[in-house]
């Protein structure tokens, strides 16, 4: 049993999936001998060979397009896009092809593919390397959007994503790549998709988040606890399809909800969560649903990014305001 960080867990899951299923291939820029720019695919080429760990030319649209074609013809490609900032040409393939191949052929063809991409800020990266535009991707019917937030969930959710018979965008919170270590048993056990995870239980307030912001949100939970406020922290994990039942159940208990995300506020996925709560839980709410998010600005370069990203202090402050409603 090994203690691994999120990156190590991703590597472990890739290796496990490739060992278990010969139709799984890994492809992307620098995923071969270089092991990926973050080293997520480190060593895979040595274990599985250059036929199954494929360095691609720099052409993101076609990395996804090749994955679509290969998936429809029987492979299970796990394609890497180096940074979310370079993923936008891929949206055409996701919207127009991956997400609808099964539907438009009435089940005759399908796209069991995974598109991995690191996302989010806080690592002092150059421009275009820090955005969180997951809401754009979560708006695509037929495409799952899955985001892990711990080594165990990275391992279990990535295995689930690879085994899933439909396309999955797997967004990796790169700020957390090396942030924590956990014992991850490489037993090939996948976690369930399409469900949230309760990271902390509490009766006073529901904090909803995903990805790297689980860190600040859990820290806020600890901080609030010192003041006698017990927050429930829910990691959404699968943004599309989004199962709101666990969050609704939590809000039924707490009556208060703060949604935390790094992405810009307007049209962010927090808006969808809030709208659903307005539908399902209005009568349970004791306070307005609040959001702690990035601003509707361009993600700043590293010198200002700390001012953009929701901090533990911001989450605590908004949570306290929410608690002030009787």
């Amino acid at each position, binding site marked *: 049993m090994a203690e691994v960080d999120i990156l190590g867990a991703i590597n472990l899951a890739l290796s496990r999936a490739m060992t278990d299923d010969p139709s799984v291939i890994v492809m992307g820029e620098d995923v071969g001998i270089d092991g990926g720019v973050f080293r997520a695919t480190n060593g895979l080429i040595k274990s599985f060979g250059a036929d199954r760990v494929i360095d691609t030319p720099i052409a993101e649209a076609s990395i996804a397009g090749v994955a679509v074609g290969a998936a429809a013809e029987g492979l299970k490609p796990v394609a890497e896009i180096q940074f979310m900032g370079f993923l936008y040409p891929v949206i055409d393939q996701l919207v127009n*092809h991956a997400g609808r191949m*099964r539907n438009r052929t009435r089940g005759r063809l399908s796209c069991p593919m995974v598109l991995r991409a690191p996302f989010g800020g806080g690592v002092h990266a150059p421009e275009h390397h820090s955005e969180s535009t997951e809401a754009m991707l979560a708006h695509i019917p037929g495409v799952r959007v899955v985001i892990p937030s711990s080594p165990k969930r990275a391992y279990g959710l990535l295995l689930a994503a690879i085994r899933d018979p439909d396309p999955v965008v797997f967004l990796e919170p790169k700020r957390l790549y090396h942030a924590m270590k956990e014992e991850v048993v490489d037993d090939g056990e996948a976690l369930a998709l399409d469900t949230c995870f309760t990271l902390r239980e509490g009766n006073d307030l529901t904090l909803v988040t995903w990805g790297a912001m689980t860190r600040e949100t859990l820290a806020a939970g600890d901080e609030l606890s010192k003041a006698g406020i017990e927050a429930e922290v829910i990691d959404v994990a699968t943004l599309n399809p989004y199962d709101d039942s666990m969050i609704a159940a939590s809000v039924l208990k707490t009556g208060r909800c703060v949604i935390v995300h790094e992405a810009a506020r307007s049209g962010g996925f927090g808006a969808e969560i809030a709208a659903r709560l307005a539908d399902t839980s209005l009568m349970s709410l004791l306070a307005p649903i609040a959001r702690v998010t990035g601003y509707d600005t361009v993600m700043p370069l590293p010198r200002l990014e700390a001012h953009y990203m929701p901090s533990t202090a911001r989450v605590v402050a908004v949570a306290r305001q929410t608690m002030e409603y009787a």
Partner: protein
Amino acid sequence: MKLPAGTEKPVEGAVRSGAERCRVAVFAIDCRRYLETDGSPVGTLPDFAGDRDAVRELYAKMVLSRVFDEKAIALQRTGRLGTYASLLGEEAVGVGVASAMSDNDVLLPSFREHAAQLVRGVSLKELFLCWGGDERGSDFVGPRRDFPVCIPVAGHLPHAAGAALAMKLGNKPGAAVAITGDGATSKGEFYEAINMAGVWQLPAVFVVANNGWAISVSRAAQTRAETLAQKAIAAGIHGEQVDGNDVVAVRQVTSEALERARKGNGPSLIEALTYRLGDHTTADDARRYRDDAEVSRHWKREPVARLRAFMMQRNWWSKDEEQALLQRFSGEVAAAADDYLATPAEAPEAMFAHLYASLPKALHDQLEALRQGGDLGNG
């Protein structure tokens, strides 16, 4: 993927033309034709062209495509089919390409490839369903692995590379064959796909049906390049032109490309020179941007009459047989159209049925709302 050996080798026969210059590469693009516009043969014909029945079959499929096309336009004009892209004048491209393919191959059509699809075994009814706005039209009973038509221009070309990759890695015997238009060669995915297929030496054939027009933008306004086939040179793959209105040539050139692909000798780019005799789609009016005189000139080169003349010269075809064939196909196409028109739409739930392999719990309430015939109310 392992790179092919010898990619760093200097080009053979490099000519030194001075102290400061060294010619490192020389390229040429050939164009192939076996039948003149009047049907008379040029040079030595491929073997299959000496087989009366094989040629008659090619002819029959071109005629069937044209009869289908006429019916589809008629249905659209009378409000019984959706917007439709006519293949008039391009029958030889689809029939030539698809007739060279085997059951092991996979076709990736764009939206004007009804002829190729018919040859592959897609039924007339499925084509009508597809253009009539019913997803079941892409659930082909025949060629189960063939891709559905791709409407976003060039979006399917990387799919062809991907399908070919799956065939190569899976040691499957076939090749992926994509057909696209001249406008697609201006798109990034076109270059990306032929480039990747070249790097990995994939069993793929990319056919560009150059019909002269991308809606209203002429071939000359699309690119300064003399040929579209020469774009293969940039990708380091085989590229050639063929008279796309000569079904014998299209079939032969495609067969050779498939042979290269199957032998592991990599992908090919074929530019088939043809002409779109009709509008871009039923929503287009080509008179806004091109002269009738140009269209009339191209009618003299159209593929169906050309092959008919070839067959007549050999006494392989008669006016009576022509009449009988037209009558037979008119009947078959009308019956398929009637069958399509008599097919009720799917139940509305069908839009949920194939979105995912199994419907996620999160979508159950939306399905239920649809069943109740109303919007989602307050949960």
